[in-house]
C-alpha cells in the first residue's frame, strides 16, 4: 500500500558538466510544477544557483547544498519528507539515491521513492544484471564476453559471428584492442592482447550500425507508450550526445519502427519503470537485426530533447505517474482536450546538433567518438531535413552559415571523413566539391545514404545559385527552393553576388528585399503533438518556408515583447542566461504584456512553451528576428538577458528600425567596441589596463617594452583557434605568436598590460536613464588572471577596503551615466592597493545576475525588465553590507571528460558550470560550495600533496600547510616544496617528479589513492617543469583525486575544512537566511 505523500524531496543535478547539463533544470522544474499542482509540499536540493528550479515559487524549501548522501541525509533528518524523487536530477541524483538506499537511510526515515523503484534502477545500472534480464525476455544486448584463452575466444565468436572487437581487460587507453573479421585475425590479436592482460573481452562489432533511441513512458497500470523515436545521423561509434540526431526516425521502415518500439515497451515492463525511460539500440543497416545498447531509467538529455521535439512534457507526466496517476488520467497539455495516453504524431522534422568548445583546451583531442565532449546542443525544426539541418548548423554558433557557403578549411579531407570531428559536415560539402559520390562517402563515413542524398540536394542548389551573377537573374522558383532548403539570405547573397567590395551584411539585406518583393516569406507553424488532427491552442511555434499559410494570426497590438534567448549552452554562456530570460518573461507577463521568447536550446526552461505567451523555437539571427518582428509588430525587443548572442544583434536590429528596449544600441556598441569604450573611459578619467591592438611583431615588442611583462595576449580567435593567454617572458610570447599568420593586418593581436596580485571585483547593477537603482559588489578569491567565469566569487564582498568600494560605486555611476544605461549591466574591475582599473563593461545581464539576485533575494532582472518597459522604479533600499550571511559561487570543471586536456585555469574560461552555497560565514559557505563541485574533505588516512610552483605561491600556501599539520594531516610534497616547508617547520614526505625514476614517485601515490587532495600550482618555466606539472594534474583528474591549481583558493579551502567539521555545517534552506 502506497502511503499518503504530502511532502516530497526532489534531488537536482548540481552544476552543469559535460554529460549533465541544463536539461535537468528543465526536467526538475517540470516535476516541481507537477507536484505543486497536486498541492504537495516540495523540498529541492540543488546548489546550482543559476537554475530556474532554484528560484522563488518553484519549490517550497530550497537547499543550496551538495547532492551527496551525507548532506541529503541531513536534509531528510530535518525535513522528514514522505517521498523522494530521484529521476529528475540526472546521474548525480540517481547515484545519490542509490547510495541513500544502500546505506539504509531511506528506510530509516521511511522515505518512499516516488516513481521507478530503486531496485529497478540498480538492475539497469549494473550491466551484468541488465544483460541477464534482457536475455530472460528474449531481447538481444550488445554484451561482451570475457575469455581467458584463444580457444574460448573462438567459441564465443562462433556464437555471435564476425566482425568482433577484442579488448584487453584491465588496461587503459585501448592497449591491445582491435577489430577482427576472421579466425586468423582473431588468433593474432588475441595472442597479442593476452600479453597485456590475462583476460580479454570479445564483443560483436556494431561499427557502422544505425543508432536509434526510444523514449518510453509507463504507468502503474502497466500502460505504455513511446513518445518519440530518434535516429542518429552519425553511425554507431559516435556517442549519441556527440551525434546529429533527428526525430522522428527517417530511414526506418514501419516494420523496423514498430519492432523496436515493441521491444522498448517490453523492456520498460520487465524493468518495472514507473515514469520514463530511454532505450538505445543499434540497428543493422542491412537487415532488421538489432541490439539494445543501454537503458536510462530516468529523465535524460534525450528525454528533454524528445519533450521539445514532440511537445510532450515527459518530465511533468513522469512526475504525475510517480504519484500514482494513470496515463489516461493526465491531460495532454497541448491540446487540453485529449489525454496523456497517446503518441505524438509529428508533421515536421527536428535536428539536434551538439556544440563543442574543444578549442578552449590545450592538448585535448578534437575527434568525436564514444565519449561525450560536447557542452551543449541545439534543436532545429523544419518541414524538410534540408531546412532543419541548415538552420541547425547556423544555430550551433561556430561560424557556419549552414551546410554550404562556409569558409571552413579541412587540411586533410580523407582523414577528416575517416576520423570525424566537429567539422565533419563541412567536410562532406568539401567532398562534394571534390567529386566524391554518395557511395564513396557512405563507404567512408557509414552515414546513411538518405542523409547524404539530402545534403547533396542542398549542394545542388548551391551550384545552381552560384551560376548566377545577380539576384535579379535568379529565377523565382530557385530562390524559393533555396529558402525551402533552409538557405539564409546570407548564404544566397554570398553565392550569387560576386562583388567582393560589398559587405556580406549588405548582400543579405539585398536578398531579403528582393525575396520579400517576390512574396517569398516564411510561415509560422505550430507544434501541436497531433499533426493537426485536433485543434490546439498551442503557442509552440517554428518558422518554415515549406508551407502556404501560417497557423496563427497576430494581434499586432503593440503588446508583445520579444525576449531573445541565449542559444546553445557553451563555455561562458549557460543556464544563467536561461534564468535571466525566464525572469524577464515572468515580469513582462506580470505587467500585463505578452511575452514572446525566441530560442532554440532544447536543454532550457525558456523553451518550455508553458513559460511564455509564444515560443518561437527558431534562429537567433538578424534575418529570423526580423521575420518574427515583421509578423509580431512587437512593442520592442529585449536583448540584454540572453548573453552575448542577442547583445551582438542589438545594433543590427536597431538599424532596421526595431525598438531595442532599455539601453540604446549605440551605448551597447560603445561598450562592445574596445576603442570607443577606452576613449570614453579616458574622457571620464577612468583607468584601464594599458592595451593596444597590434598587427606587427615589432610593434608588439615595443609595446611590451613600454608596459613590461607579463602581458595578456588575445589573438584573433577565428583564425588561429588559439586561446587568450598571459605570457611572462619573451620566449612564451614568441611561442604563442610563432605562427606568423596569427599576427597580420586583418587579424590584429590585442596585447594588454597584466597586473599581478591584483584583486578582481565585479559590480552587477541595474540603472534607469543612467542612474543606478540597485547593485551588488562581489569579489573573487583568486587573483586576477583566472577568468571571471572560472573564479570563486564571494558576495557580499568580504575583504575589500571601504575606499575601494567607494571608488567602484563612483566609477560605475560615471559609466552608467555616460552610457545612459536603462537596464542591467556588469563591470569588472582590477583592484590593487585601492587603485582601480576597469577591465570590461557589459550592458547586459552577466553570468552572476542569478547569483546576486538569489543571495540578495532581490530579482535584479525583474527590476531591469520594469525599467526596460518604461516603468519608473524606486532604488532598492537595502544595503548589502547588512546581509548577515555569505554566498560563494564555485566553478565546475569537466576535465575528466576531456582526455589529455591540461586542467589548468587561465584568462580564457574552462568551466562548464557553477554552484553557489550560502553560509553563516565565509568559510562555511566556501566549504559547502567546494563540496558541491566535487571536492571532498581529505581523509586523514590519506595524504595531501602540495606541489606549489613558484616561490610566491609557496609562501602563499605556508599558513595553509601549517593549519594542515596542526589538524593532523599527512603532507606530501615535491622536492622544492618539501624543502621550503621544512625550512619553515612543516614536515612532509618527498615524492619524486613523474619523469624521475626515483621512488616514491608522485604518480604512483596518486594512482594508489594514497593522496586525497592534490594542490598543484602551475609555474611557467622550464619545459621539464611544465611537463611534470601537467602529468601530476592530469593524473589527479584521471584517478579522480580532487585538484586545486590556485594557491589562494587552496588556502581558503584548507582553512575552511580545518575549521569546520562537516557535521557542524548548518543545514538551512534559502528562506532561513534572513
Amino acid at each position, binding site marked *: 500500500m502506497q502511503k499518503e505523500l504530502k511532502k516530497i524531496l526532489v534531488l537536482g543535478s548540481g552544476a552543469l558538466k559535460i554529460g549533465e547539463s541544463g536539461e535537468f533544470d528543465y526536467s526538475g522544474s517540470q516535476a516541481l510544477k507537477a507536484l505543486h499542482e497536486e498541492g504537495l509540499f516540495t523540498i529541492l536540493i540543488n546548489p546550482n544557483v543559476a537554475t530556474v528550479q532554484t528560484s522563488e515559487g518553484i519549490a517550497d524549501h530550497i537547499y543550496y547544498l551538495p547532492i551527496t548522501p551525507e548532506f541529503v541525509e541531513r536534509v531528510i533528518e530535518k525535513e522528514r519528507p514522505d517521498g523522494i524523487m530521484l529521476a529528475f536530477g540526472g546521474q548525480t541524483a540517481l547515484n545519490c539515491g542509490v547510495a541513500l538506499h544502500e546505506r539504509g537511510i531511506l528506510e530509516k526515515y521511511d522515505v518512499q521513492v516516488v516513481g521507478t523503484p530503486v531496485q529497478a534502477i540498480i538492475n539497469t545500472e549494473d550491466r551484468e544484471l541488465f544483460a541477464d534480464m534482457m536475455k530472460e525476455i528474449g531481447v538481444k544486448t550488445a554484451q561482451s564476453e570475457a575469455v581467458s584463452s584463444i580457444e574460448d575466444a573462438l567459441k564465443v565468436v562462433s556464437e555471435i559471428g564476425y566482425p568482433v572487437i577484442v579488448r584487453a581487460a584491465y588496461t587503459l587507453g585501448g592497449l591491445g584492442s582491435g577489430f577482427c573479421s576472421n579466425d586468423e585475425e582473431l588468433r593474432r590479436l588475441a595472442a597479442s592482447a593476452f600479453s597485456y592482460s590475462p583476460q580479454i573481452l570479445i564483443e560483436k562489432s556494431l561499427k557502422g550500425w544505425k543508432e536509434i533511441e526510444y523514449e518510453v513512458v509507463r504507468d502503474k*497500470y*502497466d*500502460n*505504455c*507508450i513511446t513518445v518519440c523515436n530518434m535516429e542518429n545521423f552519425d553511425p554507431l561509434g559516435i556517442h549519441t550526445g556527440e551525434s546529429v540526431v533527428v526525430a*522522428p*526516425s*527517417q*530511414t*526506418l*521502415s*514501419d*516494420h523496423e*519502427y*514498430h519492432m523496436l*518500439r*515493441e521491444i522498448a*515497451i517490453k523492456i520498460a515492463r520487465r524493468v518495472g519503470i514507473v515514469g520514463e525511460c530511454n532505450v538505445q539500440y543499434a540497428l543493422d*543497416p*542491412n*537487415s532488421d537485426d538489432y541490439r539494445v545498447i543501454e537503458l536510462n531509467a530516468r529523465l535524460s538529455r534525450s528525454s528533454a530533447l524528445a519533450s521539445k521535439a514532440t511537445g510532450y512534457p515527459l518530465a511533468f507526466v513522469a512526475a504525475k505517474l510517480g504519484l500514482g496517476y*494513470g*496515463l*489516461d488520467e493526465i491531460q495532454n497539455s497541448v491540446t487540453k482536450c*485529449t*489525454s496523456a*495516453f*497517446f*503518441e*505524438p*504524431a*509529428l*508533421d*515536421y*522534422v527536428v535536428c539536434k546538433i551538439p556544440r563543442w568548445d574543444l578549442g578552449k583546451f590545450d592538448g585535448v583531442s578534437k575527434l568525436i567518438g564514444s565519449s561525450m565532449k560536447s557542452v551543449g546542443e541545439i534543436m532545429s525544426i523544419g*518541414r*524538410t*531535413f534540408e531546412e532543419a539541418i541548415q538552420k541547425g548548423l547556423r544555430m550551433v554558433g561556430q561560424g557556419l552559415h549552414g551546410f554550404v557557403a562556409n569558409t571552413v578549411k579541412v587540411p586533410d579531407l580523407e582523414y577528416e571523413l575517416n576520423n570525424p570531428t566537429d567539422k565533419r559536415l563541412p567536410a562532406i560539402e568539401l567532398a562534394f566539391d571534390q567529386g566524391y559520390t554518395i557511395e564513396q562517402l557512405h563507404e567512408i563515413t557509414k552515414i*546513411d*545514404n*538518405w542523409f547524404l*542524398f539530402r545534403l547533396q540536394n542542398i549542394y545542388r542548389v548551391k551550384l545552381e545559385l552560384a551560376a548566377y551573377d545577380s539576384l535579379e537573374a535568379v529565377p523565382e522558383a530557385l530562390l524559393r527552393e533555396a529558402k525551402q532548403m533552409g538557405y539564409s539570405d546570407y548564404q544566397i547573397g554570398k553565392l550569387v553576388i560576386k562583388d567582393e567590395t560589398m559587405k556580406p551584411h549588405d548582400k543579405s539585406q539585398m536578398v531579403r528585399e528582393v525575396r520579400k518583393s517576390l512574396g517569398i516569406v516564411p510561415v509560422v*507553424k505550430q507544434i501541436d503533438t*497531433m*499533426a*493537426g*488532427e*485536433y*485543434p490546439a491552442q498551442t503557442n509552440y511555434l517554428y518558422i518554415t518556408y*515549406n*508551407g*502556404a*499559410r501560417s*497557423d496563427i494570426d497576430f494581434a499586432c497590438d503593440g503588446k508583445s515583447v520579444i525576449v531573445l534567448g541565449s542559444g546553445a549552452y557553451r563555455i561562458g554562456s549557460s543556464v544563467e542566461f536561461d534564468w535571466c530570460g525566464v525572469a524577464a518573461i515572468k515580469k513582462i507577463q506580470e505587467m500585463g504584456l505578452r511575452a514572446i521568447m525566441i530560442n532554440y536550446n532544447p536543454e532550457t526552461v525558456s523553451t518550455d512553451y508553458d513559460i511564455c505567451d509564444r515560443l518561437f523555437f527558431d534562429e537567433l539571427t538578424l534575418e529570423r528576428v526580423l521575420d518574427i518582428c515583421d509578423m509580431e509588430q512587437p512593442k520592442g525587443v529585449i536583448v540584454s538577458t540572453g548573453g552575448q548572442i542577442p547583445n551582438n544583434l542589438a545594433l543590427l536590429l536597431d538599424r532596421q528600425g526595431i525598438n531595442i528596449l532599455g539601453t540604446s544600441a549605440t551605448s551597447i556598441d560603445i561598450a562592445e567596441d574596445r576603442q570607443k569604450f577606452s576613449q570614453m573611459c579616458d574622457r571620464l578619467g577612468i583607468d584601464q589596463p594599458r592595451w593596444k591592438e597590434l598587427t606587427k611583431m615589432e610593434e608588439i615588442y615595443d609595446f611590451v617594452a613600454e608596459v613590461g611583462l607579463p602581458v595578456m595576449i588575445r589573438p584573433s580567435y577565428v583564425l588561429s583557434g588559439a586561446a587568450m593567454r598571459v605570457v611572462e617572458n619573451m620566449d612564451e610570447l614568441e611561442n604563442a605568436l610563432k605562427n606568423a599568420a596569427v599576427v597580420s593586418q586583418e587579424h590584429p593581436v590585442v596585447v594588454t598590460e597584466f597586473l599581478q596580485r591584483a584583486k578582481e571585483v565585479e559590480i552587477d547593477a541595474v540603472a534607469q536613464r543612467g542612474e543606478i537603482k540597485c547593485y551588488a559588489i562581489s569579489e573573487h578569491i583568486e587573483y586576477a588572471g583566472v577568468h571571471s567565469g572560472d573564479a570563486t566569487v564571494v558576495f557580499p564582498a568580504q575583504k575589500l577596503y571601504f575606499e575601494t568600494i567607494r571608488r567602484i560605486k563612483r566609477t560605475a555611476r560615471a559609466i552608467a551615466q555616460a552610457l545612459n544605461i536603462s537596464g542591467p549591466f556588469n563591470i569588472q574591475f582590477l583592484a590593487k592597493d585601492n587603485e582601480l582599473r576597469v577591465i570590461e563593461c557589459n550592458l547586459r545581464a552577466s553570468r552572476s545576475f542569478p547569483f546576486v539576485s538569489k543571495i540578495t533575494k532581490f530579482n535584479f532582472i525583474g527590476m531591469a525588465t520594469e525599467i526596460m518597459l518604461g516603468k519608473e522604479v524606486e532604488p532598492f533600499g537595502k544595503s548589502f553590507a547588512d546581509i548577515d550571511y555569505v554566498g560563494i559561487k564555485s566553478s565546475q570543471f569537466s576535465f575528466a571528460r576531456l582526455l589529455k586536456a591540461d586542467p589548468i585555469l587561465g584568462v580564457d574560461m574552462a568551466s562548464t558550470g557553477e554552484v553557489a552555497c550560502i553560509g553563516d560565514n565565509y568559510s562555511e559557505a566556501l566549504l559547502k560550495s567546494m563540496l558541491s563541485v566535487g571536492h571532498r574533505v581529505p581523509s586523514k588516512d590519506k595524504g595531501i600533496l602540495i606541489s606549489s610552483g613558484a616561490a610566491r605561491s609557496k609562501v602563499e600556501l605556508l599558513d595553509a600547510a601549517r593549519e594542515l599539520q596542526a589538524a593532523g594531516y599527512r603532507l606530501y610534497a615535491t622536492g622544492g616544496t618539501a624543502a621550503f616547508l621544512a625550512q619553515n617547520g612543516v614536515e612532509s614526505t618527498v615524492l619524486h617528479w613523474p619523469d624521475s625514476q626515483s621512488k616514491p614517485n608522485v604518480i604512483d601515490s596518486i594512482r594508489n589513492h594514497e593522496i586525497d587532495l592534490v594542490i598543484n600550482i602551475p609555474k611557467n618555466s622550464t619545459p621539464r617543469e611544465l611537463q611534470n606539472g601537467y602529468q601530476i594534474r592530469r593524473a589527479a583528474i584521471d584517478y579522480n583525486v580532487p585538484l586545486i591549481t590556485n594557491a589562494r583558493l587552496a588556502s581558503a579551502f584548507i582553512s575552511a575544512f580545518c575549521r569546520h567539521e562537516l557535521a557542524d555545517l548548518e543545514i538551512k534552506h534559502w528562506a532561513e537566511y534572513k
Partner: protein
Amino acid sequence: MKKARLILQDGSEFEGYSFGAEHSVAGELCFYTAMTGYPESLTDPSYRGQILVPTYPMIGNYGVPADEKVDGISRFFESEKIWCQALIISDYSEQFSHWDSARSLGTWLKQQDVPGICGIDTRVLTQKLRDNGAMLGKIVFEGEDVEMADPNRRNLVAEVSTKEIRTYGNGSKKVLMVDCGMKNNILRCLLKYDVTVKRVPWDYDFRGEEYDGLFISNGPGDPSICTETIEHIRWALQQDKPIMGICLGNQLMAIAAGAKTYKLKYGHRGHNVPVRKVGTHSCLITSQNHGFAIDDKTLPAEWEPMFVNLNDGTNEGVRHRTKPFFSAQFHPEASSGPVDSMLLFNEYVKSL
C-alpha cells in the same frame, strides 16, 4: 516535374508537382497521421476510392520493397495492389535508402498507375479537412479535367473483395474469413496459430459451411452498403461459433446485431490512436483507418462496448455479453502501426 492541381469540393485549389502516374483522378480526401508505413497504407484496400494525405511531410525515404511472396501471401504489402486514388504529400524523396527497397515510391506509383503529388502544404490541407470534415477532391493535370466523385456511394467492398475462394495454412481449426477488403497481415497473424483460413468473398453465403470460427475483415466505405454480409452475419450471431471482426467487420457485426453506424467528421487514420478497454485502466495505442463508427447508444442489450476512444469517446469495439463474439474498430494486425493489440488474435484463437 509536371505540375498538377488539387481542387477541393469547396473550390479551393493547391498547386503541386507530379511524381507518380500522370492522369487526373477524383476521390474523397482523407489525411492520416502515421509517420511510417506508406507501402502498407497504399496497399490497404480500406483506402479504396480515397485520396491519401499523410501529415508527415517527407515521404518516400525508404523506397518500396519488391513484390515477393511467402506462402502465397505478399511479403511486404497488405494486398496485391495500390487501392487509393492518389497520394498527396509535402516533400517527396526520389532518392531512397533501405536494405529491402527495390524502387522509389514514384516508380511504384507509376507502375501501379496511381498519381502522386508533392509540394503541397499538407498541414493546411489537414486543417481544412479537420474543420470542414471529409471532402471530395480531384487531381487535375493540364488539359484533362475529371468530375468529382463520391466513392461512398459505390459498393467499394465489392470492388476490393476477393473474387475467388482460397485456403491458407494447414492447422487444426478452421477459420472462415469474410474478405471485405482484408489486409494480408490479418492472415499472417492468424496463421501463426494452428489454424486453416478459408478466405471467401464479401457476399459469400457461408450459412451452410462448417467452420470453427468466423472472421469479418476490414474494408472500405460505408458498412450499410454490405447488406448481404450483414444478413449472413445475422445468421452467425444466432449460432455459438466464435466471431471476431476488425474495423469494417466491427461495424458490420454491430449492424447485424441491431445497432447503427454513422459517418465521422473526418475519421481516425493514424498510428497513435489511444483506446481503453471499457471498465479497466488498460489502454492501448492502436493503428486506425476508418471513417464510420458504431453509435454505442444503439447497441442492443446483449451487447456492450469493449473499447472506447480516449480522444473523442467514440466506439472502438463491441462484444457480446455471453457469446464469444467481439470486434475491434482499430487494427490489431497493425502493419502499418503499433502491435500493442495483437493479443486479440490470441484471445480469438483460444476461443475456437
